[in-house]
């Protein structure tokens, strides 16, 4: 059992979720309510990481974050940070890769709230911020919760993008999925099996618990 890889994966999942959640909430809610021209294209871009092969996404991220690229060079010069083959680079890649997993369920959750409820809140004197906290978020909460669980579990299991952007540096970029791959490559099937089983059980429990919680939290209308 590669505990270091497991802890790294959990850290990566938690940080990804924390970074992605505020922006993802905002984007999902905005997409739910907006009628802006070109909305379908914005939605298509949001879904893109879901349909692209992880290696393609990883390749583009690697190229754009590398020291030879303008972005990579700028980050390196301004902050002295290297993005490729570091934990920070993994976080950036992970955030990009998980956008659809968070934004889509959030969007659906906000879309399901009748517009009239926000209007009733406005007429009752609630500001946009108060309406968000007291009306929209409580009603969208089950959807937001499943989006968070999905993002977290998905990050734990991500492989292709991590391999492309991070490589396999123990303690820095070697996540549990990569560790499993390494074990299989070196014919350590017992070790691979332990970790694969752990990941399987954890994912099943997390998703199952989130579905159960969503069903319990969903308010009867």
């Amino acid at each position: 059992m590669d505990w270091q890889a497991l802890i790294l994966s959990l850290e990566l999942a938690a940080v990804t979720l924390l970074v992605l959640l505020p922006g993802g909430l905002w984007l999902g809610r905005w997409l739910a309510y907006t009628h802006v021209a070109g909305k379908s294209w914005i939605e298509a871009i949001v879904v893109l990481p879901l349909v692209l092969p992880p290696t393609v996404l990883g390749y583009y991220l690697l190229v754009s974050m590398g020291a030879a690229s303008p972005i990579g060079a700028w980050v390196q010069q301004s902050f002295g940070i290297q993005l490729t083959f570091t934990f920070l680079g993994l976080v950036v890649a992970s955030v990009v890769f998980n956008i659809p997993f968070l934004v889509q369920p959030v969007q659906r959750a906000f879309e399901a709230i009748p517009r009239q409820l926000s209007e009733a809140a406005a007429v009752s004197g609630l500001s946009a911020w108060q309406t968000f906290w007291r009306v929209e978020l409580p009603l969208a909460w089950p959807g937001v919760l499943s989006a968070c669980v999905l993002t977290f579990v998905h990050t734990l299991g991500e492989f292709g993008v991590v391999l492309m952007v991070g490589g396999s540096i123990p303690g820095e970029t070697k996540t549990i999925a990569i560790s499993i791959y390494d074990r299989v490559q070196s014919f350590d099937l017992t070790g691979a099996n332990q970790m694969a089983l752990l990941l399987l059980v954890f994912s099943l429990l997390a998703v199952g618990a989130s579905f159960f919680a969503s069903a319990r939290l969903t308010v009867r209308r």
Partner: protein
Amino acid sequence: MNDGTAPNPCGALSVELEQTLPMPLQGALRCEAGELLALVGPSGAGKTSLMRVLSGLMRPQRGRVVVGDEVWCDTTQGIFVPPQQRHVGLVFQNYALMPHLDALGNVSLSLLHLPRTERLTQARHWLNHVGLTEELHTRRPAALSGGQQQRVAVARALAREPKLLLLDEPFSAVDQMNRQGLYRLLADLLRELAIPIVLVTHDLNEASMLADRLVVMDAGQVLQQGSPENIHNAPRNARVADLVGIRNRFEGVWLGPADVAGQGLLRWVGAGETGTAAPVLTVRDKGKVPPGQAVHWIIPSDAIFLVEARGQGSPTDFEAAVNEARHLGDITLVTLTLPAVPGARLVLTVSGARRQGLAAGARLGVRLDSSRVHVMPLLPLKAAVHDDSATMRVCALQTPHSK
């Protein structure tokens, strides 16, 4: 477009609108404090849009909304007060209660400016005020009946301490038994609140029963406003007559003044007639219609009397045959045909002993109280709504009301 720059004393509502997009919305109306104004019209008449403009949920293209001395909207001066700052009580058609909050929580939303304990005390007060018993206060909307949900919605609107109360088809989802209780609640509110109340309804009986003032809308236009009695007795045109459910509407030709001053002659034209043999009625003449003009005219059903036999030579008596008699509980709805006027059908309700023997095919006499006949210009029914809006507006304003 405004001559109403002076503030309205005592919190009256005055509205002027002139909008063509996204949907037409034109007209002017006024509702005094302590008065109930009923907005009637078919689906798509713009009733709900008007409510949205009044509550600040929709910004009109051009218009002005004033309540008391507060200007809520004036597009010429660029004034638009958002709904949060208007103090409007709005009861939505399907109540729009927050499904995740109990009755107290829903009412508390209007009271967020208060500290928590004070807020709950106030919310309880308003729920009790609308007659919702204590054990229902902690229930969520899904666990309340339609009538109870509506009371919560009314309590939430009242807790806002509104300067204007808007009710969008509030009774449509409530059964008849609960309605009676809610009518009483509304009557009580009207007495105690002393603010303008606007009620949207498509139930004309309800509108006539509850309202001090009726506003008839169609295709985004205010066609007429006045007391229910006034509109029922003197609709501005055939479209209004149809919209307020006047069944006894006929065509005719205005022949000009009669011998007696203030009286005029109206030829009652039936279907497919050239009109020379048709009966002539002597009715009130308001001097507005030129002789020879084709007109619509109406007679209220309570100005039609059944008589045993036709009075000898009386020009207001006609022979009639019962075409259909439908017995509905305590009353009978009778449709009569008149041999003298082909195609004309008189509809009236009959109650008491007079109902006996009323069956299809029966022959009887009918007498019209011709002083109650109201003559209107003949407008093609569909074209009525495309009339010049400016004239419509002015006319709507000039319509006298009983107050």
